[in-house]
């Protein structure tokens, strides 16, 4: 149950850890772009602009019990749930040691069973019914697990969004559906994706609670996910959360966003960057000092340098492994 006296706002250690994870996700992503533009890795799909909501949501969940079904921008979430920086770079380089797929899938297709990170694919929103299935199974087994699933706002138009949420709602399953609304589905803006004002309003049609929060506000996201988590554990069913921020980069390394949005728009959104806002809060509270920042940046840089170097030098899967693990035949394993 919730500790009623607990206040995230004054928990210095937790807040500093949150900041570290947000910043790590951002710095990893920035390095990925450098590696891509210098011809070292073929593809990047970015988390920039969504780190705050990802980390704040993660801190409201239970690492031991909850199942996480991330989508392709969730670098922050998978880091929090135990994927290492090195493993993220192994994925970017498609090396054999990549825990997500051994280099079989593109970057951003996360999955790591030991950390309850559920494998994902490229057709969007297929993970939504899966989350409902995890919650159904956990309920059948009387386990205190919640399924947490994320997706973009464009995904909310898919049939699987509707089918997965409706099923969870009917059976009052412990699922949290969090829409990371970054305002663009590649080039198509929100207004051309949906006619309703808020994605969270869609909850009404399923008879469940819908919450809209500023995705750049860590406290708001944390509070919403915590509330949803409590509802899930109390048998009150699923919650739909819409966290709004902005995609600060092009859709991917293969996209040129200047063809569909203005530089001014991007610049003005960058000024609202939630990571800066969160840092300023910590500085104002006296939780973070200039020298802490320098030390933290240096630590992260070293971690990322080491991970990059390791991944660069790691071997690819041998071509002879191409046919492994199609089925669970013993001779293949």
């Amino acid at each position, binding site marked *: 149950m919730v500790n009623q006296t607990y206040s995230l706002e004054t928990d210095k250690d937790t807040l500093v850890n949150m900041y570290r994870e947000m910043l790590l996700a951002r710095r990893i992503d920035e390095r990925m772009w450098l590696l891509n533009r210098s011809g070292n890795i073929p593809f990047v799909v970015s988390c920039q602009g969504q780190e705050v909501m990802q980390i704040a949501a993660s801190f409201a969940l239970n690492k031991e019990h909850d199942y996480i079904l991330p989508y392709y921008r969730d670098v922050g979430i998978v880091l929090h749930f135990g994927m290492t920086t090195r493993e993220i770079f192994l994925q970017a380089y498609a090396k054999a040691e*990549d825990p*997500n797929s051994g280099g079989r899938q593109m970057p951003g297709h996360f999955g790591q*069973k030991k950390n309850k990170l559920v*494998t994902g694919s490229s057709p969007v929103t297929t993970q939504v019914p899966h989350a409902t299935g*995890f919650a159904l199974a956990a309920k059948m087994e009387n386990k205190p697990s919640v399924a947490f699933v994320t997706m973009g706002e464009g995904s909310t138009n898919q049939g699987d969004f509707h*089918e*997965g949420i409706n099923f969870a709602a009917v059976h009052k399953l412990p699922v949290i559906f969090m829409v990371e609304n970054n305002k663009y589905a590649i080039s198509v803006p929100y207004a051309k994706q949906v006619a309703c004002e808020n994605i969270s309003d869609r909850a009404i049609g399923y008879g469940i609670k819908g919450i809209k929060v500023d995705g750049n506000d860590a406290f708001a996201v944390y509070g919403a996910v915590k509330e949803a988590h409590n509802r899930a554990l109390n048998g009150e069913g699923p919650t739909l959360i819409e966290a709004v921020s902005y995609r600060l980069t092009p859709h991917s390394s293969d996209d040129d966003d200047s063809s569909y949005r203005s530089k001014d728009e991007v610049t003005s959104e960058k000024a609202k960057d939630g990571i800066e806002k969160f840092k300023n809060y910590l500085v104002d509270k006296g939780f973070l000092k200039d020298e802490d920042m320098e030390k933290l940046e240096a630590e992260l840089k070293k971690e990322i340098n080491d991970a990059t170097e390791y991944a660069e030098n790691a071997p690819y899967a041998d071509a002879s492994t191409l046919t492994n693990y*199609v*089925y*669970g035949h013993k001779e293949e394993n």
Partner: protein
Amino acid sequence: MAVLTYIQAVNQALHEEMEQNNKVFVLGEDVGPKGGVFLATEGLYDKFGESRVIDTPLAESAIAGVGIGAAMYGMRPVAEMQFADFIMPAVNQIISEAARIRYRSNNDWTCPITIRAPYGGGIHGALYHSQSIEAIFANQPGLKVVMPSNPYDVKGLLKSAIRDEDPVLFLEHKRAYRLLKEEVPEEDYTVPIGKADIKRTGDDVTVITYGLCVHFAKQAAEKLEEEGISTEIVDLRTVYPLDQETIIQAASKTGKVLLVTEDNKEGSIIGEVSAIISENCLFDLDAPVRRLAGPEVPAMPYAPPLEKEFMMNPDKIENAIRELAEF
């Protein structure tokens, strides 16, 4: 030993597997108190309760997708598509997800789900309650497609499907549900997935088929025996991946091969069987491989003369065997 119909064999396998393993559960439309529109899940709700016999919303992608999630968690879901014709909204979940989960995660995650669906015509079901849909799923490594022909195999193969570590699409011929009966052991037994079965031995012509057409082929073979034509019948049982060894042996044995399906000919399962034979049996063949299949129309019409014209039957098979024997 009790005599069971094809559908009773389905039902018995479900009862037994749910009794033996509490991770096994069923989900689908009308599978609860009603026991399914064909009564495949009859009695399960009363015995195992609503938590393990789940009436779902009418939404096929969720039936498959929720089942897939539960399977990844470690359960053994048996999802029912009410008619194979309605599986189309779930194709993305079955092909993009279930079939690829082991491979794409490099063996980290697995998806041991069974998806049951009644297929096939001859029951006045018209275009959307009669289709054969197996070919859509028969080039998806990671997935297994099982299509039993008789009650004994139904029970043994469904148990194998539920116990399998990988996703299995289990297609039941709905006209066979009450048409076919035979003695089925009450004890626990399994029939292996991936193995074809010789349903009749013969020397003149080899018929290779699956599902209800096995029954029609047997009827044809019995009649032809009186004329002195001896027919070998291979029941594929698993149509993907195919049991190449048995196909090659049986084709080589007689040198004359008739392939039969109720599905449309072009792009069907038997086209692949024909390719296996042509790659492996050239010098053993005494006649061109012959395919007997449904016509190239989208699906089976409702009006009786049109439906009858579409459907496979013993006469069509008998004539084709005779022609091959005389070649």
